[in-house]
């Protein structure tokens, strides 16, 4: 949850910017970039003593504990609560997303390896309709410019809104209600 919160703050959900982009030459266009979830892939490789290894400090490189070759199988029961992780995502096993060959990487069904920040490619593999809507701006939202000849556009990442381990959205607290006397219902 904490991770998701920090991600969200760095996504497009802060107060809208009031800076404007410089004009470009005629016909030129600014890019549309997908916001890269921060904290992904920047992992600390300091070794951790074995006794402490059942609780993974966030942002620790997987290889500090697991070693380059996995001794364990990946098809473990997630309910055994490794890493004290809550994983509630369909019936997915860890290895549906994490690469058993190198735990610091993600992987697709065909074996293609992905760095953590490429997470959107992983999500899209299984969620085609949402990816299609996302590509047309109808899922996931954005910030910046509707007109990319005038400035860049930043697309929110799937992982800005959905935690990969428990993607269901959590309730939030509503911002202030209107306060004019005609609207009160109670």
């Amino acid at each position, binding site marked *: 949850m904490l991770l998701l919160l920090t991600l969200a703050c760095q996504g497009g959900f802060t107060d809208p910017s009031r800076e404007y982009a410089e004009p470009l030459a005629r016909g030129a266009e600014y890019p549309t970039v997908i916001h890269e979830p921060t904290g992904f892939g920047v992992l600390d490789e300091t070794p951790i003593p074995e006794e402490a290894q059942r609780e993974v400090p966030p942002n620790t490189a997987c290889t500090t504990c697991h070693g380059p070759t996995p001794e364990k199988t990946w098809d473990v029961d997630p309910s055994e609560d490794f890493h004290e992780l809550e994983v509630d995502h369909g019936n997915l096993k860890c290895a549906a997303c994490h690469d058993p060959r190198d735990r610091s990487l993600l992987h697709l069904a065909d074996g293609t390896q992905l760095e953590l920040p490429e997470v959107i490619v992983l999500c899209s593999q299984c969620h085609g309709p949402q990816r299609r809507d996302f590509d047309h701006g109808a899922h996931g939202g954005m910030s910046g*410019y509707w007109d990319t000849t005038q400035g860049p556009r930043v697309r929110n990442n799937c992982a800005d809104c959905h935690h990969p381990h428990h993607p269901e959205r959590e309730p939030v*607290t509503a911002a202030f209600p209107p306060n004019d006397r005609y*609207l009160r219902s109670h």
Partner: protein
Amino acid sequence: MADTTRRTMMKGGATLLGTAALARAVAPLAEWSESLDMDEFLQRHYKELSRDEMDVILRRIEAKTLAEHGVEVHVEDVRPLEGVSFGYALNLSACIGCRRCAEACHKENNHDRATNNSYIRVLQLDKGSLSLGNVEVDYEGEVPKKEHFYMPVQCHQCDNPPCVNVCPIEATWKEPDGIVVVDYDWCIGCRYCEAGCPYHARRFNWHTPEVPAEEINPDQAYLSNRIRPAGVMEKCTFCLHRTRKGRLPACLEVCPTGSRVFGDLNDPDSQIRWVLANKRVFILKEDLGTLPRFFYFFDV
């Protein structure tokens, strides 16, 4: 109306409105007549002003804002983009009623702080019905609430706008990019437009918005978020000070659910056109024939 000042327009207004209505119409005007400055009163209609005349007015508004609110702002007369026609769509399957949009509007458009004013009102409706019978707008706490869904409503920038049609003095009109605007220096605050709008999208400034100096958004336009005088109408302008410079509206950027889609209806490759072509889209109160540019859809 070659050389109409507001005064001659007001005369026209009198015959149109009848005496009783006029008395109501000018009441707000009478209240603040002491502070009314003559330049402002004699200003010509927006559409007849030359660029130079407009510049003088903009600098005057900036000076006034500095004097009255202690803030240096930049007020621009941002014109429509050639060939652009704006449209907006909102995904009701995704909206969770968090009101971040209303809050962003509140800040972006320099709304009065005490009244929590915003051009967006989020309706909480019963699941399974689109009847506007059991609506709540002042729900609080955790959202989304079970058995409810949420529908943010703001100006629909109708192509057949009842609010424009009822204005006795042409203080509100439709721009070529589809945005319905109000000239706050021309509006007499009769509130006919407020009554005429079937979406309750117009607001009346009972007093000039009170915003702490450090919170005033200095990025302002004549027809949108500049600090409004008391006694005039206001409404959502699709953030024209942003959108006419290519930026997305503030309410869209801030949405944590990605429910909002904005763009150019004239561009066949735009995101808004894709939504209209590929989603089940509907408009509010279609039978009224108002032809909104604000659309709702559900994921299916």
